[in-house]
């Protein structure tokens, strides 16, 4: 546990700092209704980093940061002017254009570079897990200075004043985003910006309360996301983004209850759930009727959870073939696992196998893999053929079930029909 804490505590501190400043900027962009300005700024900063990368500068380097910041400031100028252009064309449209052009330019730049794909992934998801106290030492003064500046100039930063103040807003925002994208990547920075702010705005009206709620939600979600990525051995940035998405969904569901209309909320939630399930059932019915051999996620899931369901539509011979293939697929998996284990043990505990034996084991592993794939193919084929046979009756049954579940006022419908 102490190792986990030692690993996760520095990135957690970084996340706290990022949540601190981004939640504030998030509330500002929500108020200005320029939600995707962060993505645009982050992508332009990433374009600057890509230019530096192509010029041979390392990813985490002062020169690279300079390129990113310069590009972000240029974008800030553009963004400040989009407010005036936005009289006929919505400002969000122009922001979107800046984002896609910056993203496309970055792809063009690094398309032929070695490790280009890895660089793109790094831009998107960052690598917050490897950030440390050094990063905290760098960003805290910057964020503190920008926070102080905004507190001092809060009357001018309303988004309705002269363009110069608008430029100051976007420039400072750009400076924050440039540093945070280098640490956490475009996706996570957008989550830090919008989701805590959205939760704050949902449950409070004053800036102070919005900030407090956003900070608490952001910090708790960051901790949960980091812990989940560690426990489940998942990519940290992507896990945290999903955690933020989940928290927003929970907040959204909780919101009607908080507003003091629990019965209405429950009624709406129940109806939504029934419509949702009915829609999934109906879609599955259509999918089964139209393409019985294609993937049937709902039926697959049901059979995975309740295997005896298969006996409803597989003939005894098909059941036997399915079961036999399943047993053999497992047998080949176990054989391959044993071979891998043997090779590992000889390598680490005893005398290493000679080259021929290793190659022989490798050949067997391939054969076992192939045979397992073959058995899985048989399982799939047996099931697909049986589903093809029962497609119409099963689809009708699913449709009927969907209609029963859907919250349709059947009596009224019937009365009108009569």
């Amino acid at each position, binding site marked *: 546990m102490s190792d986990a804490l030692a690993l996760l505590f520095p990135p957690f501190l970084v996340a706290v700092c990022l949540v601190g400043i981004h939640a504030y900027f998030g509330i500002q962009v929500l108020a200005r209704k320029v939600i995707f300005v962060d993505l645009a700024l982050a992508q332009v900063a990433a374009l600057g980093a890509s230019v530096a990368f192509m010029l041979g500068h390392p990813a985490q380097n002062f020169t690279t940061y300079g390129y990113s910041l310069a590009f972000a400031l240029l974008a800030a100028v553009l963004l400040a002017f989009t407010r005036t252009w936005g009289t006929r064309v919505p400002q969000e449209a122009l922001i979107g254009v800046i984002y896609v052009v910056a993203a496309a330019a970055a792809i063009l730049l690094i398309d032929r570079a070695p490790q280009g794909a890895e660089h793109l992934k790094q831009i998107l998801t960052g690598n917050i897990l490897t950030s440390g106290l050094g990063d905290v030492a760098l960003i805290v003064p910057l964020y503190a200075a920008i926070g102080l500046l905004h507190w001092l100039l809060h009357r001018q930063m309303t988004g309705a004043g002269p363009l110069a103040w608008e430029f100051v807003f976007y420039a400072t925002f750009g400076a924050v985003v440039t540093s945070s994208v280098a640490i956490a990547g475009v996706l996570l920075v957008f989550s830090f910006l919008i989701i805590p702010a959205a939760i704050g705005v949902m449950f409070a009206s004053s800036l102070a309360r919005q900030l407090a709620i956003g900070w608490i939600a952001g910090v708790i979600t960051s901790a949960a996301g980091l812990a989940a990525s560690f426990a489940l051995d998942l990519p940290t940035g992507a896990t945290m983004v999903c955690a933020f998405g989940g928290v927003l969904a929970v907040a959204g569901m909780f919101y009607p209850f908080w507003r003091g209309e629990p019965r209405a909320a429950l009624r709406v939630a129940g109806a939504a759930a029934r419509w949702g399930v009915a829609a999934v059932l109906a879609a599955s019915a259509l999918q089964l009727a139209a393409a019985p051999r294609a993937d049937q996620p709902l039926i697959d899931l049901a059979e995975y959870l309740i295997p005896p369901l298969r006996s409803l539509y597989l003939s005894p*011979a098909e059941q036997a073939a399915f079961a036999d293939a399943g*047993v053999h697929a497992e047998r080949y998996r176990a054989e391959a696992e044993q*071979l891998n284990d043997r090779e590992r043990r000889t390598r680490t505990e005893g005398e290493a196998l000679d080259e021929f034996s290793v190659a022989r084991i490798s050949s067997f592993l391939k054969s076992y893999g*192939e*045979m397992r794939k073959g058995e899985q193919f048989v399982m799939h084929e047996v099931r697909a053929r049986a589903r*093809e046979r029962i497609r119409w009756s099963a689809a009708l049954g699913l449709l009927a079930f969907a209609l029963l579940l859907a919250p349709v006022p059947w009596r009224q419908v019937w009365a009108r029909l009569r």
Partner: protein
Amino acid sequence: MGSNLFVPAALGFSGALIAGAALAQTAPPAAAPASPYPPTATIANGYPGVGPADNKLRVTTLPNGKKIHVLPATLETTQWGWFDNAQAPVLRVNSGDTIALETMMHSHNQVVPGTTIEQIKKLRTDFPGRGPHTLTGPIYIEEAQPGDVLKVTLNKIVPRAYATNFNVPGMFGQFPSVYQDGQVKYLYLDLDKMQTEFLPGIVLPLKPFPGTLAVARKEPGRYSSVPPGEFAGNMDIRDFVAGTSLYVPVHVPGALLWTGDSHAGQGNGEINLTAIETAYRELNLTVEVIKGKPLDFPRIETPKSWITMGFDQDLNNAWAQAKAQTVKFLAEQRNVPADQAEKLMAGVSDCRVSQVVNVKKGIHCLNPKNARDKEDMERPTKETAKYYVSHVKDADLNKAMNDASMGMIKLLESEKKIARLDAYGLASVAMDCRVGAVSDTEKNVHCLMPKSIWVAKR
């Protein structure tokens, strides 16, 4: 969970083989007894390594005194790509015994998107001479000595329910330079109807046969499992199905029998390198040692015919060998001089191109057992009611075979609108290339594709 499932699987396999093997015997079968030995299909108890015969292998005795041995395919009981007469046997049996054995697939994992031809070549060049086959064996037959003949009768063949057909991009097969792209196709084998749907609306009958059944060579050392020879080996003769027997000369004490390259069906030619490649749940065979009747080259006995064969890197030479073997057989069978047997051959013997992809190409000839009969001598030169036909004549049999095969592929592409790699594969698994009239100046190859495989789409 895994090992819990695995042990019953192994037990189930062995039990099924014992039961199947017993049923395949003509003598009243003994009830499959509970084996006193632990299951050997599992490797959960550790790896004894490749070594002498594993005394844990299962065996049961029939009332007639003969034995049935069960030989699962594991790391310990299979060989990889080589024939080596110094290989320690994995099972010892007596003449007259039956073996119910399991076989494995050989991997085609090299045919994956993104793998370059250089990588594929490296896979081969890293282990020069190695074949791709996983072979179950060797089995030592106690009475077999050099000079004897080993008769191997295929009692029953039960494939697993899946198979593959593939071509390696830019390598192997009849047309590696034409097909720089590869394809793997998985096939579900309907073992009740004994058929498989190769493409929508194209259903092939299943006729399982072991592509490879071999005894050890005379020469010491490791030899690739790919080329066939006087030791039989990778013959890929599609008529070698259940109910037939191979007669093969023994070269070393114990004969040392291997099998693998398990097919569920194949075209005569096997032109894209592969047949309907599968693994056998059970290959049930009986071995008998025949003494005092020496044989210089393998032969196969079917219920109605004797099959003679010839192998060589040059198809012309393979034909010459097959012809020599056939003439010799007919002269013995009908007690006629060689020149008369040669004339007879043209009228009664049905010679077909077994395969052209095993380094040594193969031709086999079916010869009627009944001296008054003749084999199927149909050699159409154009489409008939039963067949699509591609016919080419040339002084070089290799060129005639190449052109006739490619002619059929093109016909499938243009007339039947089959995609090029699918056409290559279909020709490999269903085309029947027959040798027609042969003279010094003109050799005819007739490649036939049965129209019966086209059925209404489901």
